[in-house]
């Protein structure tokens, strides 16, 4: 990564651009998105989106390299100093999330081209790319900003565009799924601004670093307590924390395949990051996380979510919805790591952000490719799909093994990290819960594998793989699932730095 940063500096004009990278990361996709409307042509708008999002990915890599080399980056928008101006701050934690979001966004695009041509009517395809870029902008904005209210604005940019993306699904149930997500998402975001407003009442500031120093003086007041509760519940809705997850399964199940891939691997991750930021940076000095017992509540909700999500997934006959419930379960692991509130636990959460994005992206891509070829994702229609689409099914198998947490896949790395973090605390029952919930994952993955490999394909079914544009991205993600599963050191080291960036600023924060 640092070598990548050095490479960037050797490019022409790099020195002039380099200080402005934090804002360019967001401004480029934001300003370039409406151009899709002028282009109109499906293929042209696809090429345009690809160019812009790969640039965003490049910038994210450079930023991560810079952060790892030289630490915190602070960018003051319009040169207005904080706390009056809006500030962008990038440390290891958000640099990692930036890379995850842009990487998934970039790698989904070639996949999206083929899949969208089949699933969305041609006159509306350019709108898909417009919304895709706006959604990416919102997610990147949430990740970069160090201003509590600015975070709300970006949250709504990403949410509104994702409602539209979900409603583009072919089934009419995509509309009701999108509507329900709109109601829940708006409630969540409004809860968040109620909390921000209460913090502003007590401190007169919206800057996160400023709030961090100002909040401890007033942390005994009921207003700040209420603010904390509102913010946690509001963001909990966005990240689909059990029991606030009810919008998620249908939204993922009925969205177009490419949208399921993108949203499942990024949107909840960014919300998890936002909650981490609020809990450990904004409220980091108040100690409210421990004294109000929210850490214990998160641990319990995380564990219940792990089991409930996996349990319900077992009974699904629609494989996309099965994967969606599996996401509820996987979010449980992230919430659990957050509740442990140690550097080890947060490392587990952050490494799982990356690992889950990779494996769930691969799984949704595989099932989307199946939908592209046979036009169904129902379990009974997948009989013998292992023989008809061997590569796609192999990708699903790898992703499924990773969801279970088999060694040599990324799922193992994050679960192992979480088990260790729990044992550091002496919470052996948490470690046991992680292992048992993995057993449930075996059941739902096995249901698909059994149908795919052991049942005979229907009469007259021919062997036909998905097109190259879909195969290559999913094979890359499956490869990443195995690669980072064998070499977990790189991701764990970066996630460790990210965890330290979040928790290191907390006085008396547990190492």
């Amino acid at each position, binding site marked *: 990564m640092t070598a990548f940063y050095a490479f960037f500096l050797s490019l022409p004009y790099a020195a002039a651009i380099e200080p402005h990278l934090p804002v360019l990361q967001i401004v480029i996709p934001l300003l370039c998105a409406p151009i899709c409307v002028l282009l109109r042509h499906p293929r042209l708008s696809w090429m345009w989106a690809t160019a812009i999002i790969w640039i965003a990915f490049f910038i994210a890599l450079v930023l991560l390299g810079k952060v790892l080399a030289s630490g915190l980056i602070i960018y003051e928008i319009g040169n207005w100093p904080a706390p009056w101006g809006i500030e962008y701050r990038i440390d290891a934690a958000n640099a990692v999330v930036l890379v995850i979001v842009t990487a998934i966004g970039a790698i989904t695009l070639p996949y999206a081209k083929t899949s969208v041509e089949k699933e969305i009517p041609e006159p509306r395809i350019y709108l898909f790319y417009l919304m895709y870029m706006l959604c990416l902008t919102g997610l990147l904005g949430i990740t970069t900003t160090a201003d509590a209210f600015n975070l*709300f604005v970006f949250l709504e940019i990403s949410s509104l565009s994702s409602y539209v993306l979900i*409603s583009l699904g072919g089934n009419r*149930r995509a509309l009701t799924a999108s509507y329900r997500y*709109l109601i829940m998402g708006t*409630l969540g975001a409004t809860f968040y601004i109620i909390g921000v*407003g209460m913090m502003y009442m007590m401190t007169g500031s919206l800057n996160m670093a400023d709030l961090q120093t100002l909040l401890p003086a007033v942390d005994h007041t009921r207003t700040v307590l209420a603010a904390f509760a509102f913010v946690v519940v509001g963001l909990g809705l966005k990240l689909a924390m059990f029991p606030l997850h009810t919008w998620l399964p249908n939204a993922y199940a009925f969205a177009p395949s490419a949208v399921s891939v993108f949203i499942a691997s990024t949107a909840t991750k960014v919300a998890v990051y936002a909650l981490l930021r609020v809990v450990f940076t904004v409220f980091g000095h108040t100690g409210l996380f421990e004294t109000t017992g929210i850490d214990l509540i998160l641990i319990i909700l995380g564990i219940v979510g792990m089991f409930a999500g996996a349990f319900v997934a077992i009974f699904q006959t629609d494989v996309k919805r099965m994967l969606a419930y599996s996401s509820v379960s996987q979010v449980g692991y992230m919430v659990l790591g957050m509740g442990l509130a140690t550097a080890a636990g947060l490392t587990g959460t952050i490494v799982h952000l990356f690992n889950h994005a990779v494996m769930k992206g691969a799984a949704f891509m595989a099932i989307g490719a199946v939908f592209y070829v046979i036009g169904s994702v129902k379990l009974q229609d997948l009989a013998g799909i292992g023989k008809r689409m061997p590569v796609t099914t192999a990708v699903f198998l790898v992703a499924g093994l990773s969801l279970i947490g088999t060694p040599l896949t990324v799922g193992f790395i994050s679960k192992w990290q979480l088990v260790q973090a729990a044992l550091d605390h002496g919470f052996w029952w948490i470690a046991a819960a992680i292992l048992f919930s993995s057993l449930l994952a075996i059941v739902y993955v096995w249901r698909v594998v059994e149908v795919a490999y052991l049942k005979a394909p229907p009469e007259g079914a021919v062997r036909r793989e998905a097109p190259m544009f879909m195969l290559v991205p999913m094979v890359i993600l499956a490869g990443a699932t195995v690669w980072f599963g064998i070499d977990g050191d790189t991701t764990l080291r970066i996630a460790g730095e990210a965890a330290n960036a979040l928790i290191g600023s907390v006085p008396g924060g547990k190492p």
Partner: protein
Amino acid sequence: MQGIVDAFQPLYDLWLSFEAFMVGPASPGLLGYWIVIGLMMTGFYIVIAHDNLVKKIVGLNVFQVSVFLFYILMAKVSGGTAPILAEGISVYSNPLPHVLILTAIVVGVATTALGLALVVRIRNAYNTIEDDEILAVEEEEDR
């Protein structure tokens, strides 16, 4: 006439004690926050309780408007005027929450527009905008 007024005196006393409770002895101006909470809960209740999809959006709007009011109220400085730069004005409301809430209003308008657009599409696809009927259709499909 006085007789009628006297008859209502206990009710008026009750109102006065209610006001005193709402406003609080030392901190005038809490009444506004009570209104905010009342509106907020009304909107929230409509979102949860109503099956009609348009009414849900209306409830969502009431909920959001209560938050707008909340921000406007917190900006009020007692005795202050509108935050306009002019001769002789030294005490004025905090303009920052006003600006913040302008942004939130825009977001609210966008959300309402998108929500209503979705309702139109749902009406075309399901021929109803009652949530319970839609759920019944969907359960039928799942079976």
